[in-house]
């Protein structure tokens, strides 16, 4: 297992370099260092000298990927790409283009993101599995039929509709919770109640339908027939046999998502005024802050790789037949 993890970690380095390179290429295809300087310095009275100084101070006055004027390894190391990327692999993200510390921002913003994402993930998955189990339990009945119809309807509705509808009904018409905002500690509960409810309800349709498919696939297998032949009740068959065997595909989707919970939700955070990492990324893209964009993409990639690794490990835990080879 250790050898497998080490091998995957080595692969990860190359994947991260690739992702970093693509991010870099895409970003600088759209923006030039001059554009970044202008955006930071404003649009009034900005002189070419001020732009040159801004770029020089932040190292954006160098060639992007290759410095033909340098010698030896400096051809590659005296470039924006190299200088901006090497430190990141040591998880030193440096400063945003507006001068603020990225690591500090991430450390403060990840908690609100987690405070929203974790309950949505856990409660959502619990409800989805419960609903899916119910549909599978009552398969081929009107409950299953209308359950699937409800799922299709719910998954067809835009996530934005749930947010706006939820805010309108619960906060505006019924005045039950604040419409937006965030606070630390226990005060967070009143702000998170609505976004969590909206997130959970918005995810039920697609999640429950997917899990129902998994459960129905298991229902038809021989071991289930055997269990029933042994005289086990349907409840025991479902919860002790089918649910356990259905865990592998469920884990595939769930475990890989766990590390990404740190990255936050782009739309929900914005609408509910939650100062998380999702809104941080969007703001960085809008303000063409390359330092933040590359850091967030890097972290997102690293977490995704971590998620895949955790998924592989979790396979061995739930299915003894799977081994690292």
């Amino acid at each position: 297992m250790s050898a497998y993890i080490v091998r995957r970690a080595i692969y990860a380095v190359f994947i991260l370099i690739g992702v970093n390179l693509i991010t870099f290429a895409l970003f600088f295809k759209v923006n030039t260092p001059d554009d970044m300087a202008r955006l930071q310095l404003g649009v009034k009275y900005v002189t070419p000298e001020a732009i040159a100084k801004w770029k020089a101070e932040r190292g954006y006055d160098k060639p992007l990927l290759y410095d033909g004027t340098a010698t030896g390894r400096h051809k590659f190391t005296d470039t924006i790409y190299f200088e901006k990327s090497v430190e990141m692999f040591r998880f030193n993200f440096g400063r945003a283009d507006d001068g603020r510390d990225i690591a500090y921002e991430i450390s403060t913003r990840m908690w609100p993101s987690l405070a929203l994402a974790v309950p949505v993930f856990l409660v959502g998955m619990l409800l989805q599995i419960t609903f899916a189990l119910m549909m599978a339990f009552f398969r081929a009945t009107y409950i299953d039929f209308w359950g699937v119809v409800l799922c299709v309807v719910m998954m067809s509705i835009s996530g934005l509709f749930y947010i706006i509808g939820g805010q309108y009904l619960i906060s505006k018409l019924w005045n039950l919770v604040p419409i937006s905002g965030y606070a630390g500690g226990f005060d967070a509960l009143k702000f998170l109640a609505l976004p969590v409810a909206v997130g959970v309800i918005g995810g039920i349709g697609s999640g429950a339908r997917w899990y129902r498919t998994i459960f129905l696939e298991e229902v038809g297998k021989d071991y289930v027939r055997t269990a029933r032949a042994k005289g086990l009740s349907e409840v025991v068959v479902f919860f002790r046999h089918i649910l356990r065997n259905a865990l592998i595909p469920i884990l595939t989707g769930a475990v890989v998502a766990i590390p990404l919970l740190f990255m936050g939700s782009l739309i929900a955070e914005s609408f509910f005024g939650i100062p998380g990492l999702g809104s941080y990324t969007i703001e960085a893209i809008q303000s063409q802050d390359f330092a933040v964009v590359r850091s967030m993409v890097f972290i997102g990639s690293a977490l995704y790789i971590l998620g895949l690794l955790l998924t592989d490990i979790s396979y061995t835990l739930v299915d003894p037949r799977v081994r690292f080879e």
Partner: protein
Amino acid sequence: MRLHTVLACLLLLAGCGKVWNDPYPASQSGKNILYASFSERPKHLDPAQAYASDEHDFIAQVYEPPLQYHYLKRPYTLIPATAADIPSPRYFDSSGKELPASAAEVDYSVYEIRIKPGILYQPHPAFAKDAAGRSLYLNLKPDDLRDKFGIADFPASGSRELVAADYVYQIKRLAHPRIHSPILGHMSGYIVGLKEYAALIEQEDKALQPAQPGVKPQIWPSLAKHEIAGVQVVDRYTYRIKVRGRYPQFVYWLAMPFFAPVPPEADRFYAQPGMAEKNFSLDWYPVGTGPYMLTENNPNARMVLARNPNFRGEIYPSSGETEDAAEGLLADAGKTAPFIDAVVFTREKESIPYWNKFMQGYYDQSGISNDNFDSAVRVGIEGDAALSPEMARRGIRLKTSVATSVYYLSFNWLDPVVGGQGDAARQARARKLRQAISIAIDNEEFISIFANGRGVPGQGPVPPGIFGYREGDDGYNPAVYEKTGGAWHRKSIAQAKKLLAEAGYPNGRDAGSGAPLVLYLDTTGGGPGGKARLDWYRKQFQKIDVQLEFRTSDWNRFQEKIRKGNTQMFFLGWNADYPDPENFMFLLHGPQGAVKLGGENKANYSNDEFDRLFEQMKNMENGPERQAIIDRMVAVLRRDAPWVWAYHPKDYSLYHAWLYNVKPNLMARNGLKFYRLDPALREVKRAEWNRPVVWPALLLLLLLIAGTLPALRSWRARELAKA
């Protein structure tokens, strides 16, 4: 069980107070706190860098430049802030001999600014001293900061008196290469020695070796070591600025935060190792003498200004415009401001929650977005705006004001078709083409459709409220409007087509080749309603049989095209830096062309007569003579039509009944000190508007439970059947 849990939660919430949806802590209930919002995090709070209005919303309450604008008087009038009086320039020739104010040629002007004694800075750890008078926090080690995460974590704080040297220090900061002040380039052309000082400091900064790798050399030692030739400390409370030639607009700059004082101790404090890593900087925690101080800076969620206990107080003005008394704006005349204890700014990125929170009483004031305009305002046949019945019922008040801004469609003067190059005959043809387009674009319709009527059609570059703006018959652009039946109307499309034919494009086709005339408009495209706006413009051009094509690009490419002159027509706007016509006319001043000189004249317009008049006008005091020159300049522009003067936007703002003394001041943003609140009324209204409605939630819950009953029955039946 689930029902019990939910009911318990509801009861728990019910115990939280009369209203459940209050986004603020219960401890703030009934307090004298103003609640406002911000949508974008301010990029800079350092007064040497901050230029955007959303940045000034914060720092204008903290920093005090020597001058400020009168809160109530219009046109905008400068009054002293920390200065003892408005400085009058003295004029000198190159030999240093003083000249009379009427002298035709002036080599430099000297502004001597005397500040009031006894003004104190806000409490701040940078000023903290021990019993022996030694600074407590100016020689910190990185370990000393281990448990410090905000300014409040420094247990001791101090203050000191504001002195003239602090103003001089800030002017030096404008020149530092690592501060990147946006006005350095502009001011270097005026303040004697600033350019040379900036070069010297840059050289020294480059030569300095950082003490540790990755740690940049500190800014303040260089600034303390060298002086600017044209900026001097005269005595403890007086400083002097020498400006090249005449620059009467310089006093307006003295009302901007760029010229606010910064204590060197603050730079020393923030420059210590480990500070920047924790966001301890002037860009994060300002240090000023103003009525408020920034006590919480979490630009992702909330920023809080609290009353500065050291603020000396400021007397509420006792005069203003004639209607101010009737509107209750003089009720607090003579009282000492500030009236409000704290201002909580909450970050609100989306307009829907923002608007709903205003309607629930959780924001004390609000702008009006296009989406909410119809529900908030009723515009009468005469164009007069009034509140909707719902707003009026809630006691909300509406304030409108014309912004000191101009939006325009610019022709690129270097373009061979619409520009002003070539021989006289070609110039005349292009002029008629521009005039025809100016007539065809119905800006009144645009304002009505796309701005909900919130705008004044432009007749020239100078907006209402700025000296030089004309009302009445002189206010209309005769190239576009004509007076018929005693009123001014936009000229007919037939007249526009006639001009087009005279320009060489009868029926929108080239008289020579017969090819259709196709013009190109560069835009940034996007945004809500962007396509509708562009379609509308296409229709305007179709009215005179001209085809309009759009060249859409992102903002960066758009700006690059303008800088390089690769455009034919484009939209832009301008917000005034200060209330002087020079700040609008210079946008068309030939020597400030964007392509040749990288200036602000994005149209690259060039007209010798206009340029000559501009040079004459820019240094004059306001008066009939200056007005006459401005009139001549506007006449030149109306004839040449380098811009289609689109409109001057009108700001509509809403205020709750419990907020008093609000008068929009578009030139200055330091008016929070004069706002007054009635927190008790606010509490009553919030409770009235936000009564929790629980029964629909309970009903939904019951329906959910009822929905599971058939399933339970079915399961039971199945179990029994097996048995």
